[in-house]
Each structure stands twice: as C-alpha cells, then as structure tokens.
C-alpha cells in the first residue's frame, strides 16, 4: 500500500482526482490479485475453522449421521465434559510431556548433530546430512515396523545391547512406564534431521571472523559456542524451538502406529484422543472441542516461549 502511495505522490503534475482514481485502480488490482488466495483461505481455512467451532458447541455424534435433526446445541457442554474426564487430563499430561521433554531433547539432538556435521574436521558432509535426513523422509509406517523389532522384549536389538551391560529386559511397548520414553526416542530419531538441516544452514551463516577473533582472545571451544555460535543462531533457534514444540504438541502418528495410545493409555496424546473420539466413536462435537482446547494450549505455550526467548535476547 505504501508503495502505491509513494508512486502516486510522485506524479506531482497529476490532478488530485486523477491521483485518486489511479490509487483506487491500483488498490482494486491489488485486491483482484489477492482474491484467489483470500478466497482459498476463506473456503479451506476459515470455513472449516468456524464450522469446527460451531461443531464444538453441539453434541454431534453417531446418532446424527442417520438423522441430522438429532444434533443439539449444548453451549460449552463439551468443554465442561472434557474438564471432568480423567481421560482428557491424562492425555493433556502426556501431551505436555511430549512437548516439554520431547521438543527440547529433539532440538538439542539436532543442534549437537549439526555442530558435528558442520565441524571443520568433518569429511563427507553431504553424506552425513543425507543420512540424518533420511528418517524424516521415510514413511513412518515402515519405520514403525523396524522399531517394533528393535523394541521387541525378547529378541530386540535394544534389549540385547542393554543386556550386555547387565540391564534386565524391558518390555518397551508393553510396560506403561516405558512406553512413553520409547515413543519419545522414536519421535526424536524420526524428526531431528529436519531441524538439523536448518541448524546447519544457520551455522554456515555465523561469520568466521567472530570465531577467529574469539580464538585470538583465547576463548575455549565451549566459550565460543556459548558466546558466539548461540547468540548468532538466536533467530534460527527461536524458529526451530517454536515449530518443534508445536509439532510435539500435535504428536499423533508415532503413538498411533506403535501403541495405539496404550498400554493403559500411557502414550495417548491429545490428538490421538481427539482422533479416537471423533473418528472411532464419531463424537465429532466433543472431538472439535478437544481441538480448540489444544489450540488454546499451543497458543499459550508459544506465547510464553516467545516472551522468554525475547527477554533472553535482550539480556
């Protein structure tokens, strides 16, 4: 818009009226150009979102499939129901574990590997990047089959390795205490490669001179990492940590294919609960309410994270 104004105001000779029509025409052209994407967003984003919001205020359920008149408006009933359900609080707790443990671990692993891949002495850099990125692009269902073998309590590789250190067998996916960590390890392994690439790109943008200057001043490797690399990476870090946290809040496929949320709902994330309620039992009203609760949780967590990192940036 400002560009239009600048251009319009340069036409000093033009009369006021003509200037207005020109600006108007350009504004109209702008609108016309924006229209397709605005329409798409309205139809495919805001439409469903508003419909979902309406659904979350109704008791749309399996009876409504045969008879649409069986849908009732129940206000905040679904939300209140969620807050009274132990299953909901269980899923919320597990989702928070996924997001607050899984996401930081994932970011840390990505950063550590990125530093290794980017190190001056590392050879075959493209090869390593490809190796670490491979899990990201591999189908999860295929990956899950392999990991189920790895976690197999009797013959699995994980228990075999732990056994070498005298650690007794663990029923990774069958024991309610171990299933959650097992899923987290899989999720981190599956996803860290993506952030790794972003970090590598960020690391390559850190000016060499800063490192050289710090080295001349006698800074150790660790000090250089803390005082040069990290501050330079701050914007990348913010982006990566926010998107990763949001992804872990929405963790679904990993527990779905590995444990179906079990054993004893110990890996049941909010999205999995939503899926189960919505598509297995067809309680679409309740599932939509869960979706909006999750949205609020993610919004809150993201705001807190942005605030924290901005404050750190200023300090």
């Amino acid at each position, binding site marked *: 818009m400002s560009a239009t104004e600048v251009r319009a105001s340069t036409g000093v000779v033009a009369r006021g009226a003509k200037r207005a029509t020109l600006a108007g025409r350009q504004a109209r052209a702008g609108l016309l150009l924006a229209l397709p994407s605005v329409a798409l967003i309205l139809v495919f984003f805001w439409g469903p979102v508003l419909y979902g919001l309406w659904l979350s205020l109704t008791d749309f359920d399996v009876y409504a499939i045969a008879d649409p008149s*069986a849908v*009732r408006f129940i206000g905040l009933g679904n939300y209140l129901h969620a807050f009274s359900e132990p299953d909901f609080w269980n899923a919320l707790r597990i989702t928070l574990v996924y997001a607050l443990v899984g996401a930081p671990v994932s970011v840390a692993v990505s950063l550590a590997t990125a530093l290794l891949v980017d190190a001056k002495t590392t050879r075959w850099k493209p090869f390593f990047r490809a190796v670490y990125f491979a899990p990201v692009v591999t189908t999860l269902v295929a990956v899950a089959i392999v990991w189920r073998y790895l976690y197999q309590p009797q013959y699995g590789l994980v228990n075999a390795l732990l056994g070498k250190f005298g650690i007794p067998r663990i029923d990774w996916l069958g024991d309610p205490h171990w299933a959650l960590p097992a899923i987290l390890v899989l999720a981190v392994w599956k996803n860290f490669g993506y952030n790794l690439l972003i970090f590598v790109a960020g690391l390559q943008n850190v000016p060499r001179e800063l490192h050289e200057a710090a080295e001349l001043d006698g800074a150790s490797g660790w000090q250089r990492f803390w005082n040069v690399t990290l501050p330079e990476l701050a914007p990348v870090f913010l982006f990566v940590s926010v998107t990763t946290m949001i992804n872990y809040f929405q963790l679904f496929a990993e527990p779905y294919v590995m444990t179906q949320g079990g054993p*004893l709902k110990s890996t049941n994330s909010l999205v999995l609960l939503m899926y189960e309620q919505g598509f*297995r039992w067809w309680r679409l009203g309740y599932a939509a309410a869960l979706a909006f609760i999750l949205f609020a949780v993610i919004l809150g967590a993201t705001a807190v994270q942005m605030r924290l990192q901005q404050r750190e940036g200023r300090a």
Partner: protein
Amino acid sequence: MRRWLGVLGLVAFVAGCAASRPGPVKLRMWAMGREGEVVGELVRDFERGHPGIRVEVQQIPWTAAHEKLLTAVVGGSLPDVGQLGNSWISEFGTLESLVPLDPFLVRGELSRDAYFGGIWDTNVLDGVTYGVPWYVDTRLLFYRKDMLERAGYKSMPTDWKGWKECLRAVKARGGPGHYGIFLPTNEWMTPVVLGLQSGSPLLADGGTRGAFEEAAYRRAFDYYLGMFREGLAPAIGFNEIANKYQELSRGTFAMMVTGPWELGEFTRRLPDSLQSQWSTAAMPGPDGPGVSFAGGSSLVLFHGTKHPEEAWELVRFLSEPAQQVRFWRLTGDLPARREAWADTALTADARTRAFGDQLTRTEPCPMVPEWEEIATRVYEQADRAIRGATSPDSALATLDRLVDKMLEKRRWLAARRSAAGHRGRT
C-alpha cells in the same frame, strides 16, 4: 477437433461394449484381522461354484475397523457384504446402513434354529434381523486339573457356591502368595458375565439407564467382590502380572476366565509337563450352569449394495456347515452353526467341547452403541471397590450415575420419538 471426436467415439464404443456384454458381478467384501486373511481361500471355492460372481476381499485390521466402517457410512462407500463384530450390529442398524435380512430368511435357507440362540439374537434389533452369525466367541473357565484334584475336586463345580468353595480349597493348599483364580481387575468381562448370570439386564428402560444398583446386579457384584475380599483372586490388573501363563504354570492360581483363542495359546505356552493337566469348563451360575456372554462376528449386507442376491449367496455359502468347519480349522474361530459342531474334530477335543456346551447358554450384552464405553466404566468402578477406594454401594451408585450421563442422548431421542408418536396418533 477431429481428434476429440475420435476420442469421444472410442469412449462411446467402449461404453457400448460394456453395456451389451455384462461381465461377472463384482462383490466387494470387507473382513477383519485374521478372518480377512483366510476368507479368501473359502471365497475362491465360492467363485468356482458361481462363475458369474467375482468377490474382492479387502482385509481391515481390527484396530481401524470401526472408524473405517463409520467413515464409509458417511462417505457412502460401504462394500456389498462384510464381517461385523456383533456388538456393532445395533450401532450400524441404527444408522440404517445394514440390509434387513428377513426377506431372505423367509425362504427358509437359513434360520435361527440352526444356530446357537443367544448368538443369533445379537443380530436382531427391534424384531429385524440384520446379520447371520459367522463365528462365535464366549468366555469360560480354563483351569489346572491337577491343582483341583489335589484340593479334592475331580471336576469343576457348576454353581456359584461350589465354585467359591473349590477356590477356597485350592487357596488353602497353596498357602500364602497363592490364589484360586486370576480375575484381572481391569477387565469387564467377568463382572458383566456374573451380572448376566444373576439375571441383570445391565441397562434398563430400553437401554437408556444403568441398572447396576438393582438387586440382580448387586448380588453378582457382591459375589465378585467376595473373590477379592477372601483373597481367592489377587487384586491386580493385566499390566501388573508379567506373564499369566507362567503364573498359572507355577500354581500362583489354578484358573482364569478367558476365550477360545486361548486354546492355542495354552498349548503353545504351558510347559510340556502341564499339557495333560489343563482343561476348560463352562461358567458356573448362581444355581447350576450359568450363561456367558455372546460375542463373535456376523455376516451382513451393507445398505446400498446393488447385488443383494449375489451377496446373500455368499453369506449362505460361508454359513454352510462344511465351510464353517473349514473356517474353524483355518482360524480356530468357533462355528456359529450347530450342525458344524457335529463334526468329530470339534467334539473329539474335550476342551473345545466345553465351548460347545457353553454356547447353548449365552446372552448378548446390551445392544447400544455406547456399550464399549459403559463396559470400561463397569470395571473401573469394580476396581475402585476391590481396592477399597470406595464402598460397594457407592461404586454402584457412581456407576449408574456415569452410565445415565452417557445415555442422556438416548433418553432424549426416545422422548422425542414418543412425542412424535403421540402427535401421529392424535
């Protein structure tokens, strides 16, 4: 332009050919889990006998079956024929996505008399039959003969009183750390079966209210809790026991309540020394042999099928006694049709025979779409009472309250229906 005309002409030609020479009728069939894997073998024989029909079997994992079916209902992509867990019949019947089979049944080719009655009834909703039982599932006792013999029992008692006395005797011989029976506290089957035995309808008023506070269920609940109070059963769930086969072998307990798939598991997992020492017995009841629950899968025709006659042919074929026995050999699933049980292989084995006996006494669980969730609440409240977190009375009161809340929609629908009925009459 001319090229387009050419393409159009070709399309018209192909379409004309298809219309003038009807190919074989294609039936789409959905089957779940292991059944889906092996049914193809039976279907091949069906195709050989019916050259005009081709059957395309799609296998669906049990874990995804319910959502896939519901989505197909909404999306209008149901197959012609399929397998349906009989606890889902009421739901899909309510959704009007099943074809009523009564017009086929009046021809007399298949009828309730040929089947175990309790199982057949799980397919009937408000007097309309929506499915034909394919295979059956029920629960009964698996026990260690040697442990019972040492406790002075030559065979399994058949009533509640005898059952408990037997468990006391077994426990007394075992000493501390030993029990009579394993009843996982996070399973609904046993409390529900005992309730059915005691004559409880479980749900009242046409499946719109819980009936757990009524005398019949209360009696069963008291009997059930007594098992734990007296230490005849350990107060633990599935997840608190590492390996139930191992514990049974060790003699930690002498029996458990479970289903037909366990026949194979026991053969595989119990040590050789115990292979001749285990057996099965029908459920004891309040006074003499009791009922158990009627589970299993049915064959149904889905709404919107264009080939109901051909689909019914397939259902009839799969229901033939010979095919039922073959199916049992392939899967271990017990035949739903009585004639199939005349097969010597099924009756030769005493352990399987006990299932045949139990199947003459089965009752369905309440046929409401909410049942699966209600069943969860049943064991949750029982578990709380077992662990002493609440009194038996308040556990049942809580259960009824929770169930009533879940069934609120059904009450509303029923009220609306009766209001509409009144208006219709006046």
